[in-house]
């Protein structure tokens, strides 16, 4: 319904309440003549049974109870954009970087795009698994303290879990917690040694509530940006799907999604060692250590670090990336459902840079404007095919 339809709504309501003015009746008459659909709708609305049923439906709703429930959730403020120790400002929206196809920006003709997509990110959840196996949602509620066994204290704030108060705990057998994230959100953690980890969507981290022993070991799946607290006496080790990353104190991005063929460690600062148990490589800033699930081999390569750490700066950035990979990443972040209607569209390469906290629409629009693919939304599913 558009703004222009407000007048007809008012006129019909008045007509139903038997308070229509002559002007109302005229507005109604004109509108009914406009189309058969209007006429059919008018007949429907003014049917006594329809009116009674709808008034009855309005009455039976317990608005008070619904409001109380929603109000509780409003207080919970589900994490979206947050500023917890973020050092970078949000990227400017939809600034296009690469691609020779910059001309699409100038062709702003309206596009046939199907429906709007709902933002499904909001239904996502972050689960914290305590040492006894209890699972609690942690992205709800205001700042609070969660307690685990043996005196563990976990501070919970919007989008962030903090274990740093546990450093003083007495050394005992390690107690493990695990954080499990759904799609469509990111989360941050401070471990007991002060190490900070930014977790991207669909990630899992298993870690001791306090590090004990000579090594600091965590298990990881998904994508995370690690700022490891400097402590050469206690190497920090991340185990991620066949790759082991040994750190002395540094910043790096680790991508280890189970449904992807590789595990990638991209070094931003400092120095890390990556290993598969047999081979070991030391990588320097600007390099990436890649573990392939298929061959179980490790190799290193030079990469554009900004590409691999873009998510950490609130950006979605891709360059010469096959569309199937682009869509897989978008699905993780936006919680969308998509389908390729042909094989050839999967391999087309795209590039671009967007604000991660913007709606997905600008990205879909960009794809459409390249005129290389058709992107149609039907019933909340994005269908992609090669433009003929």
């Amino acid at each position, binding site marked *: *319904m558009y703004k222009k339809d407000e007048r007809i709504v008012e006129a019909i309501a008045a007509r139903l309440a038997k308070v229509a003015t002559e002007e109302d009746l005229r507005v109604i008459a004109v509108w009914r003549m406009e189309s058969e659909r209007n006429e059919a709708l008018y007949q429907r609305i003014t049917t006594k049974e329809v*009116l009674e049923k709808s008034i009855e439906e309005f009455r039976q709703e317990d608005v008070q109870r619904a409001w109380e429930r929603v109000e509780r959730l409003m207080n919970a403020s589900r994490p979206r954009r947050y500023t917890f120790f973020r050092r970078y400002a949000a990227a400017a929206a939809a600034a296009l970087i690469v691609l020779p196809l910059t001309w699409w920006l100038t062709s702003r003709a309206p596009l046939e795009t199907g429906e709007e997509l709902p933002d499904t990110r909001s239904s996502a959840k972050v689960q914290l698994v305590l040492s006894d196996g209890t699972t609690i949602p942690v992205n709800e509620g205001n700042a609070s303290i969660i307690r685990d066994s043996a005196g563990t204290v976990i501070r919970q704030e919007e989008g962030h879990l903090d274990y740093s108060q546990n450093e003083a705990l007495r050394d005992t057998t390690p107690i493990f917690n695990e954080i499990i994230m759904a799609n469509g959100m990111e989360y941050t953690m401070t471990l007991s040694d002060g190490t900070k980890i930014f977790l991207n969507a669909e990630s899992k981290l298993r870690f001791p509530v306090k590090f004990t022993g000579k090594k600091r070991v965590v298990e990881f799946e998904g994508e995370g940006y690690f700022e490891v607290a400097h402590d050469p006496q206690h190497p920090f080790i991340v185990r991620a799907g066949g790759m082991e990353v040994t750190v002395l104190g540094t910043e790096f991005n680790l991508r280890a999604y189970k449904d992807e063929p590789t595990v990638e460690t991209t070094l931003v600062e400092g120095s890390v060692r990556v290993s598969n148990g047999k081979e070991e490589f030391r990588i320097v800033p600007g390099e990436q250590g890649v573990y392939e699930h298929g061959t179980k081999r490790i190799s290193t390569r030079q990469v554009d670090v900004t590409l691999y750490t873009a998510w950490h700066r609130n950006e979605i950035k891709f360059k010469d990336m096959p569309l199937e990979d682009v869509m897989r990443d978008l699905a993780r972040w936006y919680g969308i459902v998509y389908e390729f209607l042909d094989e050839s569209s999967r391999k087309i390469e795209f590039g671009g840079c967007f604000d991660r906290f913007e709606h997905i629409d600008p990205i879909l629009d960009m794809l459409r404007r390249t005129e290389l693919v058709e992107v149609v939304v039907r019933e909340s599913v994005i269908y992609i095919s090669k433009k003929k």
Partner: protein
Amino acid sequence: MQNIILEIRSGDREAFREFFEDYYPVLCSFARKYLFDTERCRDIAQEALLTYWEERGRFLDLSEARRFLYTVTRNACFNVLKKERAADRYLQASGQEYADDFEEKIIEHEVFLLLHKAVNGLPTQMRRIIEYSLQGMRNSEIAREIGIAEGTLHTLKKRAYRKLREAMKDHFYVLLFF
């Protein structure tokens, strides 16, 4: 003079509550056009309004917020339906026109919302007169029911009608500026 959507945008919970009271029953009833499961419809309506609250920064006027709410509600219903009949999906994607009288449904619900809101906004006695007369009761019956003389009823009814029409006229206006 402030627009309720702008008040909500600035984080005003009272304004949002007022808006919620109008739109929650409407969205429940709207969802029921797609789904039979009443409880499911309530969840969807609540979720839609909560999402609007979280996304309130995006909306500057009623027509945008309204479109968002109806769209989110419908899509949530579709998602439920889709799970129930996943096989239909491909068919619809491969070029078949999807016939959904979305616009018509919105207009229908906006009419009933306006009617409901305008009648409920009247003082009790006036509201009763209007309700009885909408049910088709004669003046003499209404007068007896309320316990007033028929002549008094006549005057009251006229006043009630005038007030009701004014309330309707104010509806979109009131939502925009009050």
